[in-house]
């Protein structure tokens, strides 16, 4: 399929460029000439946007995303993991933020003790039975695309999540954040890929929540967990819990 923005741009630019002299010299109408000039401006704008479209089609991206999610879900299902994933900042996982799904709930405070190894199965406590599965989530890869690393205040986190979800990925319309010391409530309006009751989503959250959790944990430099995700009238409400070190 031809790029629709390029077709629209070429049509408007050529149409405007042909009509402008006609309107100015033959029809002798300044408003119509101005409309032609506006069409030329819009045409060039549309052509500029055409070059910013992704290389692969949305359908291909959807297939790749679903394949990855199904493979991870199969692994979680096979291991019988039902615990909620804990999103870790990059400094604890060899430079890339990841999510750890504990085999058994509890002992989260052990995750603060230092860097974890970069393997799939990670042990994070002296007790050999305390371990989890570390997986890469959609948000892990998007962090590199942020122009600046967000700071730990709500405005910066909100701006970073909005930039990724709205500007880069185009899977939401707007993001709003309410934050206190222990909980962060993120409201995402017009979210695509919202929550479904599947094994993957129960453990790791929807892709939108996963991206929001990854950016938040990186901004705060603290592990976070998706506690709840609800949808109401095209608005997803994501509740994140900030995990604090237990001394």
């Amino acid at each position, binding site marked *: 399929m031809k790029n629709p923005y390029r077709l629209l741009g070429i049509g408007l630019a050529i149409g405007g460029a042909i009509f402008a002299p006609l309107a100015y010299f033959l029809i002798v109408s300044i408003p119509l*000439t*101005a409309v032609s000039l506006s069409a030329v401006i819009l045409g060039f704008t549309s052509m500029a946007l055409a*070059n910013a479209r992704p290389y692969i089609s949305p359908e291909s991206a959807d297939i790749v995303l679903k394949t990855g999610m199904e493979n991870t879900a199969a692994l979680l299902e096979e291991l019988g993991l039902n615990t909620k994933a804990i999103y870790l900042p990059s400094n604890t996982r060899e430079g890339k933020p990841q999510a750890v799904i504990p085999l058994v709930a509890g002992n989260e405070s052990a995750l603060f003790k230092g860097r974890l190894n970069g393997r799939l199965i990670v042990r994070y406590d002296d007790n050999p039975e305390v371990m989890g599965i570390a997986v890469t989530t959609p948000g892990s890869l998007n962090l590199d695309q942020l122009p600046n690393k967000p700071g730990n205040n709500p405005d910066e986190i909100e701006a970073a999540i*909005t930039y990724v979800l709205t500007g880069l990925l185009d899977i939401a319309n707007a993001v709003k954040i309410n934050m206190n010391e222990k909980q962060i409530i993120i409201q995402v309006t017009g979210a695509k890929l919202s929550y479904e009751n599947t094994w993957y989503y129960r453990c790791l959250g929807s892709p939108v929540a996963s991206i929001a959790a990854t950016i938040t944990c990186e901004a705060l430099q603290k592990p976070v967990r998706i506690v709840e995700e609800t949808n109401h009238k095209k608005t997803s409400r994501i509740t994140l819990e900030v995990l604090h070190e237990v001394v």
Partner: protein
Amino acid sequence: MRLFNRYLIILVLVSALINVLLAMLGQADLSVYFIVNVIAYLVITLLHVYFNPPARRALNGVSVVLFSGFLVIVAMKVFEILAK
């Protein structure tokens, strides 16, 4: 691509509104239409801060060209006034 569509729709509506309003006010100077349209374009583009980097770069290129046209018209008007 909803963000791109929304941006283009806003540009179309605003430029149509500007042209209709100026025509209704009896404006007969083409440079006035151009300047107001360019200002509207620059403001709307600046307000869309969440575009991805390739889109931002491409739109910056269009903005530079339009702003240059704006400066040329302003310079011509200034010379016109000074020459009187």
